[in-house]
């Protein structure tokens, strides 16, 4: 892929087929498409959650909260992927770090740099806000997402996630 950074600071990658995409901040009108993509990938509908999350990201700590979408540069302007994350501090004794809560790419356009571009924008946002650590959490069985984050240089961190059923 060739890469050109636009004057607006968005990142545009042109694939060999001539199709491209742009990474930008999510807008309110994107949320339905984001929710549809999320349900397609996760199998769970979370429309209300995503809508509420987006709205909360507009009102508080906006400079530390990031909701990006990858938009098809073609006529349809389809949402090809999204990433959500924010900077959290002192939870679990952790110094401020950037958490990636969600990252999804439409199955039909995987391995075309969309995920990498979304993560890169998230990382740039975290750096601008002054943090130097990025974290995420992935289910053991989500081999695809685990492999993606590993390929982007993430490694196991110093925490173990523990849980119990509340009966």
């Amino acid at each position, binding site marked *: 892929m060739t890469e050109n950074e636009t004057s607006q600071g968005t990142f545009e990658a042109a694939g060999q087929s001539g199709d491209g995409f742009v990474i930008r901040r999510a807008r309110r009108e994107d949320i339905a498409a984001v929710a549809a993509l999320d349900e397609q990938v996760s199998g769970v509908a979370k429309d209300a959650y995503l809508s509420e999350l987006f709205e909360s990201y507009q009102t508080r700590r906006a400079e530390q909260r990031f909701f990006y979408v990858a938009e098809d540069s073609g006529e349809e302007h389809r949402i090809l992927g999204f990433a959500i994350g924010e900077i959290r501090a002192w939870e679990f004794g952790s110094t401020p770090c950037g958490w990636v809560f969600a990252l999804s790419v439409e199955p039909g356009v995987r391995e075309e740099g969309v995920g990498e571009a979304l993560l890169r924008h998230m990382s740039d946002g975290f750096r601008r806000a002054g943090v130097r650590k990025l974290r995420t959490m992935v289910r053991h069985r989500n*081999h695809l997402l685990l492999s993606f984050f590993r390929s982007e240089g993430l490694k196991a961190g110093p925490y173990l996630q523990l849980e119990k059923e509340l009966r």
Partner: protein
Amino acid sequence: MKLQTASRLALYAVLELAGHPERQISAGEISRKYGISAHHLAKVLHALGRAGHVRAVRGASGGYVYAGNAKRTTLRDIIELFESLDDRHGPGEPGAETPVGEALDEVLGETNAIIGATFNSITLATILKQIAAAAPDIDAGTGQPDAR
């Protein structure tokens, strides 16, 4: 945890070959570079060949070439040719049916799940990318400063 010798040799061999897909590399060259038994390596290469990860090239300048897909092959795929990553007590093992046996089995299950997920999440391509990023000025083949 410690990998069995065969698994370790297999990872050395397949990463060496996948890191140089354009080259034929002999078993002798790999055994000298990694300081490992050529005899043991030959058996491991045979197993890797049967699984389709490498291919022997016949002829006077023969050796092996990488024959797999580094982006799709995980460390687990290689390791499990030689050992199981799910070794834990099961029914029939002495003590397994006792409360202590069952509690230990649960803990081993936790650790195995983490180990399995870790090896299953790292492809050969990812390891090679990490190696290249860690030593960009070193030729991965010779271990010497890159002449370019």
